[in-house]
Structures are given as C-alpha cells and as structure tokens.
C-alpha cells in the first residue's frame, strides 16, 4: 500500500489529519520543514505550523512553553540536532517538566548519507534513552508510522520519533495491529532471536531467508519502541531460542543492543551478538555502501546468528562455564 512512498510524506499527511481534528497539535520546525515535508502544513494551519529558524534550543523550550499552555507540539530536526545538540532543553524544559512534546529526528544513523559524519547520529538513542521518562519510537515502515501517529498523540508525555524520511520496503500490511509498547513478532522461530529496529528490520528479514536456507529457524522481532522496551517479548524469545542478535542503525553502545543486554543480563543471560555501528563516527556515502562497510548487511546478521548458535550448541554459556575467552565484544 505504501510502496515507493516516502516516510516524511506519510508523516506530514498524518500530522495534517491530526491537526485538522485536534486544535491542540502544533508543528514547529527549525528551518528543515522542506526536509521533513511539513512546509505545506503552514498554508493549512498558519497559526499552528511555524518556523523558529535555525535555533533548535529555542524550538525545544518554546515547545515546552506551548505544552504548558495546553498544546501538543511536534518539533523536528535532523537526529543529531534533535537530540545531542538540545539534550539539556529536552531533559529540563520538556522531560523534567513533564511536558507533552513530540520530538522528530530525521535521517537516523547512516541514513544521513551525503550529509555525512556531522549529520549522522550514532548516539541519539543513547542520549535520549538516558533521560528519565523519554519514550523512543523508531517506525520501520509507512504502515507502522500511520498506525502509530494517533497513539503518539494520545500518549501524554514526551516521545522521540526516530524517522527515516525516504521510501522503505513495506513490512506491515493493512491488518497490522499496533501497540506503542509491544514489540512485533515478524517471524516466529526456535534457533536464534533477532531483535531489529528501523531500517535494519528489512536487512534482518533477508537474513532470516538466508538462515532458512542453512536450516536455521530464526525468530525476528521488531523493537519499534526502544524505550520502554517490551521486556516480556525480549525475555520470552531469548528463553525460547537461547541465542540473541541485535540489529540497529546506531552505535552498539547506548542503543538497542544495550537495551536488550540490560534486560537479559538481569533476567536471562544468553549469548548476544551486536550488529550495528561499532563505536565510530559516520562518513559521506550511500546507505548500501555504509551497510557493507560497517558490517550491517544480511550476511553480517547471518554470521552473527550462526556464531551465537554455535556457542549455544557448544554449551558455552560464556557467563560461568566458558573454557575460552568470549570474543563477543
């Protein structure tokens, strides 16, 4: 249904529909409305869609002031400027003050492509995840985003929306039932659990196909809400498979891998392999090039899964009875 449709177009369409029926909703940009696709909203809602200029700090606190006045503002910028640049405004004006502001970060991780390293946030989830009370949502496709938008508005509190802005392969269909706080089982399996978010979900779907050819039955779960993470889904899947791979378009420190490991270390320790950005900055290149360079392709996910399964079958818990040092990290 949404093949070849850009996520930003879907986002601004849905936001427009919501603004039409809910006068509390406001759209604030910091000179990136053209990038976000929200420029058109200004004609439709001249009072409630406006620009603060290149001033992200002000945008965040103005939004908090509007929220204190009863509005529900959506603010947006590229991910690094919607998170690390305005970390204190997000922490104090918005989250500490419990203001209902929705923060949209565009072009997460390597998807900043030709804007390069300065615009590639490898740490935005880490920054936002460590702020108490922040919800972090990363839609995987247009259908999920459409289903999520009303829930995001309905939820009374700050949410960080990590938004890939171009077209993505469809994962979900019309009958998809969305729950902001529940992970999606995309494929059930028994041998290894793959937890994936954002653009890495489609990479993981391909990896599952390759694994099936090798006789490996992988379980694929989409973690669309990284905080608060669906703890039950993570533990139940890990208990079933005994081996876990995380796939994220983010530094493996501070993001999905960290979130999954925090749960498993406490409640059900198993081997975990991380596929993602291995603690370095980004650079100018297209996504496919960077996926290959940073070892984030389906083949890399397969390798990680096979290694995890091998350790499991060799009986190396790695936590209490390992005879050789773990090479996990």
């Amino acid at each position: 249904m949404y093949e070849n449709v850009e996520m930003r177009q879907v986002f601004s369409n849905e936001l427009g529909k919501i603004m039409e029926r809910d006068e509390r909703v406001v759209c604030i940009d910091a000179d990136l409305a053209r990038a976000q696709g929200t420029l058109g909203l200004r004609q439709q809602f001249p009072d409630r869609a406006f620009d603060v200029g290149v001033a992200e700090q002000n945008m965040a606190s103005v939004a908090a002031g509007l929220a204190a006045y009863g509005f529900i503002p959506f603010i947006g910028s590229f991910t690094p400027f919607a998170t690390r640049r305005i970390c204190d405004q997000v922490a104090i004006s918005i989250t500490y003050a419990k203001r209902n502001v929705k923060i949209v970060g565009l072009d997460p991780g390597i998807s900043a492509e030709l804007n390069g390293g300065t615009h590639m946030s490898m740490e935005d989830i880490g920054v936002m995840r460590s702020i108490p009370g922040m919800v972090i949502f990363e839609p995987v496709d247009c259908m999920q985003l459409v289903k999520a938008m009303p829930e995001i508005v309905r939820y009374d509190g700050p949410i960080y929306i990590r938004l890939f802005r171009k077209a993505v392969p469809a994962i979900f269909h019309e009958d998809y039932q969305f729950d902001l706080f529940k992970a999606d089982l995309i494929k059930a399996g028994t041998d290894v659990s793959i937890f994936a978010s954002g653009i890495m979900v489609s990479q993981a779907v391909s990896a599952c196909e390759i694994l099936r050819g090798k006789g490996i039955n992988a379980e694929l779960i989409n973690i669309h809400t990284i905080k608060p993470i669906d703890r039950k889904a993570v533990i139940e899947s890990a208990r079933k498979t005994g081996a876990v791979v995380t796939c994220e378009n983010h530094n493996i420190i501070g993001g999905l891998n960290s979130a999954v490991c925090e749960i498993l270390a406490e409640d059900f320790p198993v081997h975990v392999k991380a596929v993602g950005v291995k603690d370095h900055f980004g650079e100018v290149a297209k996504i496919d090039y960077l996926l290959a360079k940073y070892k984030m392709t389906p083949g890399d996910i397969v390798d990680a899964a096979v290694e995890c399964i091998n350790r499991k079958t060799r009986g190396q818990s790695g936590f209490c009875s390992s005879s050789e040092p773990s090479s996990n990290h």
Partner: protein
Amino acid sequence: MKENEIAFLVDKSKHIRRLTIDSIGKLGVGHVGGCLSIVEALVVLYYKEMNINPQKPDMAGRDRFVMSKGHAGPALYAVLADKGYFEACLLDTLNRPETTLPSHCDMIRTKGIDMTAGSLGQGFSCAVGMAKGSKIKGDNSRIYTVVGDGESQEGQIWEAAMFAAQQKLNNLIGFTDYNKFQLDGGISEIVGLEPLDMKWKAFGWDVIVVQDGHDVKEIAEAIGKARQSEAKPTMIILNTIKGKGVSFAEAAGVTNHNMPVTEEQRIQALKELA
C-alpha cells in the same frame, strides 16, 4: 498610582523580603542576592498587574509568570504563599528532602508555578512559547518573565528574543534583573552586556529602562507602558541591587549569589525588615 497603593506595595515588598530571608535563613544557605533583587517586580506583578486567582491556579486565560532565573524561586514562593496558593508554613520546608519548594522553580511540585526553570536561558524560551500559545488561542492573556543579567549571556536568550520579535508577541513582557553581578564576579568583568538596552532594541523589542528597579511606582508605570505595545514584546530593564534590603547580603556583594546565612544573620535581617 495612588499613594496608598504605593504604600501597600512597599509594605508588601518588605514582607516578602522577610518571608524570603526567613526561609533561606532557617535552611542556612541559599540564593539570597538574586532573590532579594527581584522582590519589587514580583510584588507589582502579583499584587497589582496579573490576572490570576490563587483559588484557581489553573484558571484558563490567566496571566502567566516564568521565573527564568529559576534560582530566585524562594522569593517567588514567598509571594505565592502570601497570595494563598499554599500554606505559608510550607516555606519552612524550602529545599529540604521531599519539599514542594525546591531551590529552582518546578511546575510539577509547586502550586502556582507556571513553568519549570533552572537551566538558564530555557525559561525565557518557554515564556515565548506561552506567549505564542496565547496568540494561537486568542485568549488575550499576558506572559511575564524575569531573566537574570548573567543569564543573558546564554545564547538561547537571543534565539528566543529574535523569534518573539518575529512573531510580534506584544503580550510578552520581560524583565532583566540587572543587579550587575553573576556568580564569578561583576557582569562587566566576566562578559559585559552593555549596551543592553540597545541590544534588545536591535533584536526588535521595545525597551524600557527602570532607573531604580526597587521603585514600585516606576515598575508599575513601565508595565503600563509595555501593555500599550501594538506589535512588539517589551523588555523592562530593572537596575537593581543584589541582596537589596538586607545589610549583610548587600555588604557581601559578589559572594551573595549563593551564600550561607547564620541564625544571627537571619534574626538581624528580620529586625531590619520589621
């Protein structure tokens, strides 16, 4: 302004100073200087100018106040207690564990506080957001906010200033508590603000300089003038004295930003303000 109204506001200012220094003194330490320098502005706002109802702290269409220099919370708490937003005895819990009156203003914890502040520069932007919100709603309310002179070194203040002018937020009235000191020294020695009035003008604001920021009549007249603005926000620059009205605090000068207060000093201050 009638003489009896002036006398009332002058007396009230003395009372608010008393409550403020008493609560900080009982704790033994606090932001004495910046609390005492802003008392008259708070008194004129809360006892004369603002459309508020302490019995209905969340009343729609009320005027709002944002203490962007959030460390002056204790002076504002004294005003709110005196106005009846909460019991005056709560002032004795200032900055103690589980208090509803933390050192910096917190809208979640304290009845009557319109916005959380403490990380400097942010409250001012929040006030701008509220003024924009009032314009969207068309509820004709006014938003008042106080920024510190040291706080005016924050870049965010000037981001917000440009945006407020662009949006023609004439319902926004700001005050600069220009007491000439910040934590590390004199403002002019650290990073000077002069010419401060010209800066605000250049950023598209109407500016009124109040020569004596402790003169309630002069403050009230400035607010009256600011209310007439048709298309611009107004910044009222208050020339104030840090620690005003308490001799040991005034004498402490630059060290009165966050200072210890002994029991003897607390009692002496209450006598001075009797």
